[in-house]
């Protein structure tokens, strides 16, 4: 378990003209976490800013952050041996092979030449990268490059790994492969992850926080969040519904002509019976993270004005 305490964390960026934009607004958390901790939110919600502050890359405008017992704002050096980061859009150094990239990273982290070599070989074997290890990045697929980057930070033995949108741009198969790697790694490391993909967050996360316009909207396990919003079930009524049944719960009419009804267990059960009697086509599922996100924040694909 790793303790993460955040108190009134705020970040205001100023551009060259002095125009201020707020990326984080008074975010507070007090958690004992392990496994995969995921931040979700629209573009500009403050996910990357959050990760950059907690991983000691960026100073906050105000607030305190304690990670694993260390005040990371005041004493960043104390935590840096225990953390490793893959920033958004990070790339392997193109003139070095996968093996050389891993080896150099370990040397930068201060391992001896012998230890770095040993760890490089071990991680290549563990991640089944043998046949790619001596190739330059341009000869590797997007998925393999990401895998090498993850291998690189894992090889350092850092306890806490920050991954900022690690699967962005990957094809569905590569993404699933990386999920399996992350699921395996979460047994030994705390992984703090940001993602745009809600099904990814739902699949991987042990703990989720939802940010919107720099504010913490909800946090907890997926079940906690489902319970907290009070609508554990989502009923989708397909196109052509004549509205000849009174719909109870939170009803959303979508642009494609379908209805989405969020409700508690009893209401869902009653409504399902009525819909069956009237031979209306529908599906019923536990409320997904995407549904919750839509309810709380809106469409994830619509970004805010500023990128952080």
């Amino acid at each position, binding site marked *: 378990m790793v303790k993460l305490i955040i108190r009134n964390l705020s970040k205001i960026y100023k551009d060259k003209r002095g125009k201020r934009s707020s990326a984080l607004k008074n975010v507070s958390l007090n958690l004992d976490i392990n496994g995969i901790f995921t931040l979700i939110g629209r573009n500009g919600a403050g996910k990357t800013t959050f990760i*950059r502050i907690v*991983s*000691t*890359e*960026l*100073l906050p405008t105000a607030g305190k952050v304690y990670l694993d017992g260390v005040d990371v704002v005041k004493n*960043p*050096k104390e935590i*840096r*041996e225990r*953390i*490793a*980061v*893959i*920033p*958004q*859009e*990070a*790339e*392997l*150094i*193109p*003139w*070095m*092979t996968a093996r*050389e990239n891993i*080896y*150099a*990273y370990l*040397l*930068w*982290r*201060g*391992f*001896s*030449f012998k230890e*770095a070599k040993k760890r490089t070989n071990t991680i290549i074997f563990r991640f089944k990268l043998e046949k790619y290890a001596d190739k*330059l990045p341009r000869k590797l697929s997007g998925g393999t490059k990401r895998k090498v980057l993850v291998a690189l*930070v894992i090889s*350092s033995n850092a306890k806490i790994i*920050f991954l900022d949108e690690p699967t962005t741009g990957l094809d569905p198969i590569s993404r699933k492969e990386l999920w399996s790697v992350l699921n395996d790694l979460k047994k030994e490391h705390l992984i703090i992850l940001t993602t745009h993909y809600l099904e990814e967050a739902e699949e991987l996360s042990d703990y989720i926080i939802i940010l919107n316009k720099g504010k913490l909207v909800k946090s907890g396990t997926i079940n906690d969040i489902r319970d907290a919003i009070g609508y554990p079930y989502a009923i989708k009524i397909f196109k052509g519904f004549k509205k000849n049944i009174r719909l109870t719960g939170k009803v959303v009419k979508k642009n494609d002509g379908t209805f989405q009804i969020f409700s508690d267990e009893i209401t869902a059960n009653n409504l399902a019976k009525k819909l069956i009697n009237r031979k209306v086509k529908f599906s019923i599922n536990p409320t997904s993270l995407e549904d919750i996100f839509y309810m709380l924040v809106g469409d994830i694909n619509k970004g805010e004005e500023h990128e952080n």
Partner: protein
Amino acid sequence: MKISKFSQLSASVMANAFYAMKNFPVMLVNTILAPFGLLIIIFFVSHGTLLNVGILGGFILVMVNNGISIQGDLTHLRNDMKLQDMLVSSPVSPAIYVAGIALSELVFSVPDLIVLSVLAVIFIHISVISTLTVAAVMLLTFMFSISLGFFISTISRDVIEGWAFMGLISMLLSTLPPVYYPITYIPFPFRYLAYISPTTFSAIIAQSSIGFVKFSASFILTSWIVLIMVSIALIVFAVKRSIWREE
């Protein structure tokens, strides 16, 4: 875990010089040829009389070009690979990282220095004192070039902009000033313009150390003072400008 600072320093050298040369030998050819273009032109135009000055100019150009290169490399690694972001959240310090990258630029200049040294031994018959003088001048030239390159890397937003700066500065510091030829060849009042470039002072000291041009002792002393002051000022300025953890 015991952190090895030597490993950290070596990582920058290996990543930015050794592996680049090993995996892309064409970079080595390009680097080696850089100082010889002007040297060959100077040799033919002067019917060989400026060969020794041209060789010294080659030494200075190598130091300037490789020193300035740090800005392109740092900008590329920071903006395109996000390496700096990865390393900020690791045990490596900014001083070690930048010192390693600076050292890697020096490693890149080694093949040039070997070829130029062979030419210097054959054509200049340089004394021990002159050798030490030229070495000191080269070191100072490298230091202010590195500092200037580092400073530019902190203001250039992308690598394209960085390359443009690099070409411009290389021309202003090594091609236009009297580095490959003596300053006495520039008529007044244009000669005053040459004093704007610190490499003019590098060349004056180096050329007078082999006896090619004669200047008063006070002028040579002034040249040393200017070179040392410029180097210190640029180093201090670069250190003050450096940003590791963003605000």
